């Protein structure tokens, strides 16, 4: 049972507040903000903490905190998922979530909350069903530039900021469209020898639908998709998802023509009756944004970057050293990584750094910087095309003589990047069919792929 729900601005101001049970003091908003701001030893506060018998559960989105308080022994993931759901609904109705968007739409948000939560009990949370109950017009707000995610940096489909209430319009300005985004986040760790010692993709097929009347859809994925479980014996009951029986990941890992997924889960609207045989998913998309499927895999990934690093002494001076980095971009030539950042931690006794970069002309170097405080050296590139080969050299000035230990103290190198229209797992949508027998009905269909770094680390 949720006692209170409130939304706080980045500065801790209350922008939305509802009290359901009246068993938590009104000062809880301040208690929450103070506790999370000044958590033990300056560490980031965990999403759940207990103060004076009141549990505070929170998620952060668009710079604002969505917080629920309770005195009961509730299911924490239930509450967190619910808070996430509220944030999605706000995005669905107001175009984005931010302090501004909430302030501009507060009567609408109160209306929505009325339907979402009654007496601390969750009610209807489907964006679509809620439409019946809201009367306020939304004021669509695009996120402020500082929060605007690079395409794919967050998990959801981006670039579209409009309200689901748009589909109710009858004034001819309505635009029917549907977005299907395959979003993959890469977590890869390379050892000092350059081999990937762990690699995993957390992927998600995100759907954002603005189709009036919610016509059914049919989506087909790769035929060579294989979903495996560790023991190979897929789960046979239930919805019938999960791979066939007897497959073993090991047998197929070498066969790179297959796309192998370790685990998949589907949204409840997914009808999987044709999934095992044809890899087809039928669904009636609810309004707004939702994850049709989440998957993860560690098999046969296409790793977009490789890197080698060498640290050597400067023969001219024992208070200088040279670090050479070479980075290969292993994606097809027609793709490009944007917003590439190469981050290199340096030991505390590096006083100054000077960098040189050799890159093919089009890989515009946006700059480099070295921070004395964090001891991080960072290169930024605007765009790196597939097949490019970048060399970076950093001359370090040291406060103490060069020692062999410097080699292990430099690094590990972390990469941040986003590659549009590229999926590291090679999962792809073969078709997206809108099942409506109307010749004139031809809504926009957007299918997009994006791979971004979650944690892409080269150890040294």
């Amino acid at each position, binding site marked *: 049972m949720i006692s209170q729900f409130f939304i706080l601005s980045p500065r801790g101001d209350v922008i939305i507040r509802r009290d359901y049970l009246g068993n938590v003091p009104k000062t809880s908003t301040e208690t929450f903000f103070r506790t999370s701001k000044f958590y033990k030893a300056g560490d980031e506060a965990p999403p759940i903490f207990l103060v004076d018998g009141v549990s505070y559960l929170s998620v952060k989105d668009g710079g604002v905190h969505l917080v629920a308080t309770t005195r009961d022994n509730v299911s924490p993931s239930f509450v967190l998922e619910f808070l996430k759901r509220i944030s999605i609904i706000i995005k669905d109705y107001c175009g984005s979530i931010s302090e501004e968007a909430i302030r501009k739409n507060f009567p609408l948000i109160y209306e929505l909350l*009325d339907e979402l939560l009654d007496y601390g009990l969750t009610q209807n949370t489907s964006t679509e069903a809620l439409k019946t109950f809201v009367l306020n017009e939304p004021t669509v707000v695009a996120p402020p530039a500082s929060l605007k995610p690079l395409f794919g940096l967050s998990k959801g489909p981006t670039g579209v900021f409009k309200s689901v209430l748009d589909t109710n319009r009858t004034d001819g300005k309505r635009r029917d469209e549907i977005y299907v985004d395959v979003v993959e986040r890469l977590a890869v760790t390379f050892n000092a020898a350059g081999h990937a010692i762990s690699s995993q993709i957390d992927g998600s097929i995100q759907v954002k639908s603005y189709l009036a009347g919610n016509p059914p859809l049919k989506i087909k994925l790769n035929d060579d998709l294989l979903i495996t479980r560790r023991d190979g014996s897929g789960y046979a009951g239930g919805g019938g998802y999960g791979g066939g029986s007897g497959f073993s990941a090991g047998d197929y890992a070498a066969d790179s023509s297959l796309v192998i997924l370790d685990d998949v889960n589907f949204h409840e609207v997914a009808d999987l009756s044709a999934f095992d045989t044809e890899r087809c998913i039928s669904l009636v998309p609810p309004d707004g944004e939702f994850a049709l499927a989440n998957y993860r895999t560690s098999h046969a990934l296409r790793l977009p970057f490789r890197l080698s690093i060498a640290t050597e002494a400067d023969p001219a001076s024992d208070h200088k050293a040279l670090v050479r980095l070479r980075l290969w971009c292993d994606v097809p030539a027609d793709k490009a990584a944007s917003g590439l950042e190469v981050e290199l931690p340096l030991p505390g006794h590096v006083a100054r750094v000077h960098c040189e970069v050799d890159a093919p002309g089009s890989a515009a170097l946006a700059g480099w910087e070295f921070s004395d405080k964090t001891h991080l050296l960072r290169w930024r590139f605007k765009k790196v095309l597939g097949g490019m080969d970048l060399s970076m050299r950093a001359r370090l000035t040291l406060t103490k003589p060069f020692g062999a230990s410097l080699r292990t103290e430099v690094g590990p190198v972390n990469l941040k990047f986003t590659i549009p229209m590229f999926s590291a797992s090679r999962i792809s949508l073969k078709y997206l069919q809108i099942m409506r027998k109307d010749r004139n009905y031809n809504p926009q269909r957007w299918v997009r792929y994006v791979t971004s770094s979650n944690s892409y680390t080269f150890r040294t």
Partner: protein
Amino acid sequence: MADSKYFSTTKKGEIHELKEELASLDRPKKKEAVKKVIAAMTVGKDVSMLFPHVVNCMQTEDLELKKLVYLYLINYAKTQPDLAIMAVNTFVKDSQEPNPLIRALAVRTMGCIRVDKITEYLCDPLQRCLKDDDPYVRKTAAVCVAKLFDINPELVEDRGFLDMLRDMLSDANPMVVANALAALQEIQEISGKEVLQITSHMLFKLLAALNECTEWGQVFILDALVSYQVQDSKDAEKIVERVLPRLQHVNSAVVLSAAKVVLRMMEEVVLRMMEEVRSEELVKAWSKKMGPPLVTLLSAEPEVQYVALRNISLIVQRWPSILANEVKVFFCKYNDPIYVKMEKLEIMIALASERNIDQVLLEFKEYAQEVDVDFVRKAVRAIGRCAVSLEKAAQRCISVLLELIQTKVNYVVQEAVIVIKDIFRRYPNQYESIIGQLCDNLESLDEPEAKASMVWIIGEYADRIDNADELLETFLETFPEETAMVQLQLLTATVKLFLKKPTDSVQRMIQLVLSAATNETDNPDLRDRAYVYWRLLSTDPEAAKDVVLANKPVITDDSSQLEPALLKALMEQISSLASVYHKPADTFVSRQRLAVQTVDTLAAARSFAEEDVAAAAAAPQATGNGAPAAAAAAVSSAPVVDLLGEDLLGDSTPAAAPAAPAATPGGLDDLLGGLDVAPAAAAAPPAAAPAAAAADPFDLLGGMAAAAPAAAAAAPSLPQLLGGEKGKGLTVYGQLQRVGGRVVYQLHVNNGSATSVDGLMLQVNNNSFGLAPADQNVAVGTLAPGARGSAAVPMAYNPAKLAQGPANMKLQVAMRSNQLGVFYWDDNIPLAPLLEEGGTIDGQAFLAAWRGLPQEAMQKLDVTIADVEAAKARLGAVNLFVLAHRPVPGTGQDALYVTGRVFGSTQVLLELRLMRGTPGVDVSFKSERQELAAAVFAVVRSSLT
């Protein structure tokens, strides 16, 4: 339309302006004004003075405006109860509107107004709406019943709303079912009574509904399934079969709740010990299915990951096999938030095995070179903990630690020294070759724990370190400035050095240290230890050697291991906040909404309690399956328990393992018993209440409600605690009692002074049971001169109030009043009220506990028992639960195995042997707290006579 402008109205005369706008005839203007009011309310400004003006806007056709007004009403109705009445008419009218949205809105809002006066008017509209044609109205009405119950439970029961709710469980609309279920669960929570019991018939309905309802409803149903009592292993299999697909859900709450159900069924299957092979197979198959979904949870946002990781760290302790091969997925990413990294580290340690240790060590080494100091320290400790728990990997761990020491990073070196000390304790005389390398880093040690560890190492291996005396001498130079921890280690190390190498220079050192530790310190621990050594050394150096250089017990790594009983309790609370805090729910969930109670409601509760007691007495027989056998086994092995082995090992084990506080079958049945009588008791006329409150306390003690002389006058039945001069005219009677499943301090205050007295508050001193008032107010209101008042102060367990040292039954109480100052008195704690209703454990746990505990206390009670069944019932009535009853072969005696839990989670175990009709009952007592024996014997005696 940009509504944000409402937030910026701060100019003067704002309120006045708003009043005018609210009165405006222009609807849009009116609406604007109400929005401004709501915005002001949100940011915390007081706009309650606008109440009548806003309420005036309520009569409107405009639904949007109506909603806004209702929002305001909910917020302020409590502060303006008289004005809130004005709204009632509109509510009643709205609840008959043709538009279902308006009907639902009216019902929803009415219930949120927690004003007693309104509730009566609420009943008729609610009754109508519960039977409404529109499911949206019905589901809103269902929740409203729970709201009403919170304000006025009697009303809900009188009007038969509970039955209507139960009927709604069969509604055609899943949303209505879900809300009815949620409302019933909530009412059960508030009242502590069983209003909803899952039968096998209902189980089927719920399982079927699982596929149809929303993700939130699924969580509700899964959580409800956990409390279902499985009949046999077939049942368990059937449930798991239906629940397993839920593990694939996108919503992490559904996944975790489904995992909770499967884990619970695994326990059931294991417990039932079906043909060994089969149960093993099932557990193995289910474990395999649970692994991948749990791993998938780690792909979610950090917040969700955190919850998953806290739960997984419990799951891997209980069922290591589920994730044994998955250690890699717990490797930290560089951009994980620190709270996620710390949890992952713990799980990596738990999953480290000889097979994966190389991989894991490599990771730890990487982490130990990161920038976050706390994380680095924890990584170094992790290496040490792996070394301690994996013997074959110890060598590799040590070489990693040595490499880390080479980095010369100050805090890394210090942490490494600390863990190497632990490794030396775990594997004595195996790795001292590395001491040389440690000694090279003495100058970088500046933290007490690291210094103390290094000093310990030097002392322990003084005979192998050539320059041990020089090393210690450098440390001794700063002896007076060191912290107590380092001083103690220095003292001991010097003594060890002296015993091993009694050279002249060492002799001088020891004299120096002993005199410094005895004369120049005000730390009693240090002084005492120094005197002990001094005396030992001067009387018998050989004996000193035996004492100081004795072999030390080997340590184990249990820093992350939870007590088995706690783990068991937490496993039953997977996917709840308890599993995130790793604390059982009753330590942080307080019944705040019930905390302040008047005497009347407590008295009513008390009459339930008596019924409960009777029901509880019946419960053990129902739950005793399999227990007799277990208990019989206990007898055969019990008397000869090897104390030494258990006790001395416990170098780092906290002394008192809290016994299972879990809700066990007995507890449930007991709630169930309460159910039947609840409505009747609640409906009891108010006149009956004082009588019940006045009932003799011994009536609970004796467990014979019927026979008790209930007619006694209120005050004298309670012992006098305060009076005469000390009381400055106030006379207080009182006693600790058990009422409605909790301990209350029943107080009766006579005001014999010349002034009115108010603001009475209670506090207690530290005591042996950690008793503390849950709410300090003594709710007697203001007592005029000559007036009297009764109050029951609920008591709660507060670990901070736990007195150290041997148990005694004394309670020191202070009560303050606004007029007469503070009073103090001493009271005795009767044990009987401290025995808890849910205090039974299952046969297995009893057996394990009985074996694990040291020699019992015994006493022969001079009572005669003719009817064993009656005796069982009497024991049950005081919350001592009979787990098993069997004849003792060849003696004609009967043996009863009895357990109970004392307030503060101390389990007591009893064996009673008796001959029917012959005087004398032999009672054996075992518990973590042996000192409770006498008090428990007294309770047994009084309950049996």
